[in-house]
């Protein structure tokens, strides 16, 4: 087992990437070398689903034989994200302006959570928020 620090977009051929996001402070990733043991892969999948953050795991046969390394963008002192996540969460936002204008801790709080939940493009937040019986 080896541990790394926050590479959202890294996966190894026979390993699972488990990301833990803490409310404050850096997130951490652990690479669990579970080989092709189906039971272990199912367990890792359950852990990821329980995070509630839309993380998932691919079975070994769907991963390439060599490590997949995504280009990472540093959004703040403590946050690195892959290209896809950057496009989904931060594209079009004036992050440089926000970094200048917000106190550092406020900026960290903003970028840590904004767009964090992937959701579904078909979601209508107004309709979904309706508290009356459907």
């Amino acid at each position, binding site marked *: 087992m080896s541990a790394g620090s926050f590479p959202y977009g890294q996966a190894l051929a026979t390993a699972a990437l488990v990301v833990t*996001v803490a*409310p*404050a402070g850096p997130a951490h990733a652990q690479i669990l070398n579970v080989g092709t043991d189906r039971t272990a892969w199912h367990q890792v999948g359950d852990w990821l*689903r*329980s*995070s*509630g*953050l*839309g993380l998932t795991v691919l079975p070994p046969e769907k991963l390439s034989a060599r490590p997949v390394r995504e280009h990472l963008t540093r959004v703040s002192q403590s946050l690195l994200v892959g290209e896809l996540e950057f496009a*989904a*969460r931060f594209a*079009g*936002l*004036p992050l440089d*302006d*926000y970094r200048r*204008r*917000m*106190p550092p*801790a*406020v900026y*960290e*709080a*903003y970028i*840590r*959570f*904004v*767009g*964090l*939940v*992937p*959701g*579904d*493009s*078909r*979601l*209508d*937040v*107004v309709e*979904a*928020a*309706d*508290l*009356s*019986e*459907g």
Partner: protein
Amino acid sequence: MVGGLVSSHHLYPQAARLFGDLLAGGTSIVLSDLVINESLWVLARLAYCDLTGQPPSAHWTKAIYVHHQASIFLHQGAKLSAIRDWLAMLDAAGHPIDVVRSTKGQWIGVVDRTLAFMKDFGLTPADAAHLALAEIHAQTFVTADGDYRKITGSAAPQGLTVLIVQSSSGASPLRSQRSNPRFRRRP
């Protein structure tokens, strides 16, 4: 709040930008209980859909929530607590953010205005109370709910700018009674 948290829905770019601008401007943010209720309701619904592999339009009622709530919290708890964690981190960072406080001395006025907004604009009780609290506690009322487009004329809340977040042309000030409708720091 939930608009700025869920990245894939159509209002996300506007909501994320609006929230960023509010924070960058040092604007005080006041949440009513409706914001908390509705945000958690949306996230519980998303969690249920993720758990069951259904689209977000899946049938969703209080009975379904009650039936699945233990599983939702067990498997998707982090999703529900994201709102809480976001608010806590902003609070710890020193940004002025708060929930509407007791309206002692004003509560009967809140009920009066809630009834008036229900009667005059056809709002639901929860939406009307949300607006009545904003009339007392806020300068700008931010929502994505198009029902508030009905808020016009002399019966509209006094001294309150209603800002409706929309997807086509960004956030639009629906109505302003001030010379400068931009967000301002609360005193």
